[in-house]
């Protein structure tokens, strides 16, 4: 079924158009992004059940203006009913706020560079996503009941289970973008589920983590149910996991870890606001080889159907499908609108905000390595001593110095071309991006996408996105 559009956004569309019209008398460019995103998060544990609105919920607006030299923004979320009938007073307040901001900027002991004016092509369109089971259409009792049964089943599966969190979260994202030339509206749903068991045997305590996500509704709980048994099996195996001997190894990255590598290496590394700041090493490598010829990497809101998908970004630019690395050669980066203006290039539809309250940056959407032709069996058979890295907890980028860090939950030992059954946990993978990508020697044929994580810029500005890839064989340092 179609995801319903926001009735709130429909109700404020005309007043916002009028607001843009009024402010356009003072500013050469005016745009407004308004959001109305709702959803719930349910968490079932052994002795506690919680329900709360998702922390991704938001309803508010951000206005961007160009004052002939620079872009200024103002975020707000109070809009009196009177304002909707007579938008002039609100326009006056906003005008005064921008005047104050410009005055403050003028007193700063810094230069204010003159930026070009945003030029948009006219477009007016509305998009609605599809969903299997609309979460709000099902009684909450059923949803909580299914999650509770998962929790109970988990305790039946292992005597070592101390606690488990079964978490399900769904969001309906609705956005409206209005400028002098554009009127865009979209509504879509994503959902994510987590199974986080904690197991203890004597003094050993381990936490397992499994997740799933997609542009889905309640049907995602089917995937959680299907994954429980394997999650618990691995959780029990983790109780016997050992520490790895730090060294460089031949490794196979699972599609999840490949996604982490894509994200931290050439995802963050090609966000083009970093090019503007001179923070991206990749800027020196446009058109040059940065990886093995087997490596291809794409990013784009329309490049895959996952939690990083949308029709237009938070600056009113249509979502794209960008070929970042082609046969090992760095082709282009991903850009927000203002960075593109400064660099004299076309934006790629990667301008994203944490919420209406925050600035737009160049951000990843769905980022993934493209498929190869090898099989996992052949890849495993080709390794004398190494590891299959399966699940991660977090990662960190270093776009200037091309380092990557990944916190890996567990890896499986490979000896003489076979998995030995031995697990190591936890461990770190790290490396120098061109060496890791340059060492890629085998790539499997099937690409998988994962969208349960979130991505920060540095340590803030969290947004939803997805990452993935095929199985990839390379060399990395593990410790």
């Amino acid at each position, binding site marked *: 079924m179609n995801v319903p559009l926001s009735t709130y956004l429909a109700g404020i569309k005309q007043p916002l158009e009028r607001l843009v019209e009024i402010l356009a008398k003072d500013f050469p460019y005016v745009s407004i992004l308004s959001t109305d995103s709702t959803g719930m998060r349910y968490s079932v544990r052994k002795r*506690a059940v919680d329900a709360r609105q998702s922390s991704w919920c938001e309803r508010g607006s951000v206005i961007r203006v160009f004052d002939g030299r620079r872009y200024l923004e103002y975020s707000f979320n109070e809009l009196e009913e009177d304002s909707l009938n007579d938008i002039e007073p609100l326009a006056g307040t906003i005008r005064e706020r921008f005047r104050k901001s410009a005055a403050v900027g003028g007193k700063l002991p*810094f230069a204010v560079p003159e930026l070009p004016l945003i030029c948009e092509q006219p477009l007016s369109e509305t998009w609605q996503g599809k969903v299997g089971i609309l979460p709000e259409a099902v009684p909450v009792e059923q949803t909580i009941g299914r999650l509770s049964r998962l929790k109970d089943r988990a305790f039946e599966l292992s005597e070592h289970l101390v606690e488990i969190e079964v978490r399900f979260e769904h969001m309906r994202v609705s956005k409206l973008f209005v400028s002098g030339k554009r009127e865009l509206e979209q509504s879509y749903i994503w959902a994510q589920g987590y199974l986080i068991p904690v197991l203890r045997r004597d003094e050993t305590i381990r936490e397992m983590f499994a997740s799933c996500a997609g542009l889905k509704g309640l049907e995602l709980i089917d995937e959680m149910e299907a994954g429980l048994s394997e999650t618990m099996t691995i959780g029990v195996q983790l109780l016997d996991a050992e520490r790895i001997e730090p060294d460089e190894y031949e490794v196979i990255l699972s599609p999840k870890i490949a996604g982490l590598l894509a994200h931290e290496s050439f995802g963050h590394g090609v966000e083009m606001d970093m090019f*503007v700041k001179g923070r991206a090493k990749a800027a020196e490598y446009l058109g040059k080889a940065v990886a093995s010829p087997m490596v291809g990497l794409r990013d784009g809101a329309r490049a895959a159907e996952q939690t990083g998908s949308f029709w237009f970004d938070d600056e009113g630019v249509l979502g794209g499908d960008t070929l970042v690395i082609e046969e090992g050669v760095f082709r282009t980066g991903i850009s927000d609108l203002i960075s593109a203006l400064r660099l004299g290039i076309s934006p790629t539809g990667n301008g994203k905000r944490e919420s209406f309250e925050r600035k737009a940056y160049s951000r990843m959407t769905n980022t993934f390595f493209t498929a190869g032709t090898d099989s996992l069996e052949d890849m495993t058979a080709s390794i004398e001593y190494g590891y299959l890295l399966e699940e991660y907890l977090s990662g960190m980028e270093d776009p200037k110095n*091309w380092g990557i860090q990944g916190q890996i939950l567990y890896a499986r030992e490979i000896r003489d071309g076979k998995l030995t059954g031995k697990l190591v946990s936890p461990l*770190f993978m790290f490396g120098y991006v061109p060496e890791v990508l340059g060492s890629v020697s085998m790539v499997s044929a099937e690409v998988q996408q994962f969208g349960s994580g979130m991505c920060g810029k540095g340590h803030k500005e969290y947004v939803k996105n997805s990452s993935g890839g095929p199985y990839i064989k390379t060399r990395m*340092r593990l410790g």
Partner: protein
Amino acid sequence: MMIKRLQELLAGVPDISAWKIIDRRIQGQELYLTHREVDMQRSKDVRRIFLTVYRDFQEEGKKYRGSVVVQVHPTYCAGEIRALVERSLDSARYLRNRHYPLVQPGSETAAMPESSFAARPLEEWLSPLAETIYAQEGAAEARINSAELFLSRIDTRIVNSIGLDVSYRSYSGYLELIAEDGGKAEDGGKAGDGRKAENGRKVHAGAAAGEVELYRELSFSEFESGLLASEVRDQLRYCGDRAAAGATPHLKRFPVLITGDPVPDFFGYYLTQSAAESVYSGISTAKVGESIQGDEVRGDRLTLALEPFLKNSPASAPVDTDGFALRTAGVVDAGRLERYWGPLRFCHYLGVPPTGAIGNVTVSPGSKSLEGLRQEPHLEVVYFSDFITEPLTGDFGGEIRLAYYTDPDGRRRPVTGGSVSGNIRDVQPQMYFSRETQSRAGFRGPRAVLLPQISVSGAAAT
């Protein structure tokens, strides 16, 4: 007005057993700088209202309290709020949580100390803050690549259905600062061109050469120009050292001194272990009166407390999010767990006095000076890519962006790349804290912690 309307609406809802409202008005100013140019200025004026509805019910003689937390956006009309409340109450009756009380009104609440930012309008602080930051350029060869400066004034009010009504004003400052250095590689190489480490092996992850940068974030709630200047100068100096750093040697197991930002994260393990919620859920087995640091402590013993007010900490508050009046609470004394800490709900479940959810942590200084801790060969890590402590298992580690290696001959030199990893339960019998202290967002305690013989993976290939 909005809160009054909401209270009136809630009063007419039949199945509601109790409710709580947290109302925050946030005014913010943001300045984005690249080198010495203004990238963008932003401001915001937003209101976040969180409503918790509680529904009590009984099953098989047991009393339960289900609760649902929702955000009531200021633009919600009465019909939307009513529908939201009804949906939430419907959900609440399926949340079988043991009953617990709301915070009673009447407790004496300490006054929130006034921030120096209260003296002027927010926007007028951007210039002195930015000037203080950029005035430090020149103290080292490194310079500032970019800075993002956020300053917010937050008015919080917490109201509940049994008459609690508390308010306070706080300030929150945040700086993201990127320092960069053009590099001074010994062999004139550039990043990524395969420099040789001192042992002649090929350099891997992060071995510095050419241009480097260092990322830092700072949180604050006061205009303390001296402290801000000192933090920026340190970062510029460290960035210069990273540019000159060699590859971290493969030390296998080696004493590691962690300093600065990772120290509060490290102690976070003990907060999780002593939290009433962790004990209630069974993931912590810590017992009051027993050692939380293991049986045979040969190093420094941990003393940890929670403080509602810590100077320059945005986490300072007179009450927690339930409106519970906060007081200083000693949690660990000389390695022995004194009490569980936590919000009213989980302390009530355990039958222990609540401390409330307090945002600031203090750890008592240790027995040795920094110089004393540096006497033996060690690796002193001052910057990680992202130091991670798993508060449940005690696993910790991270990739090294800058460390100082003191070798067996007593020579100290900057190194980069590689990683450290270990488990707190393995190191806690023999860890030492510095006598010198530091103040970070929400933390006051030792500047450094010396960990015995943990795994150090080098940046050089074998």
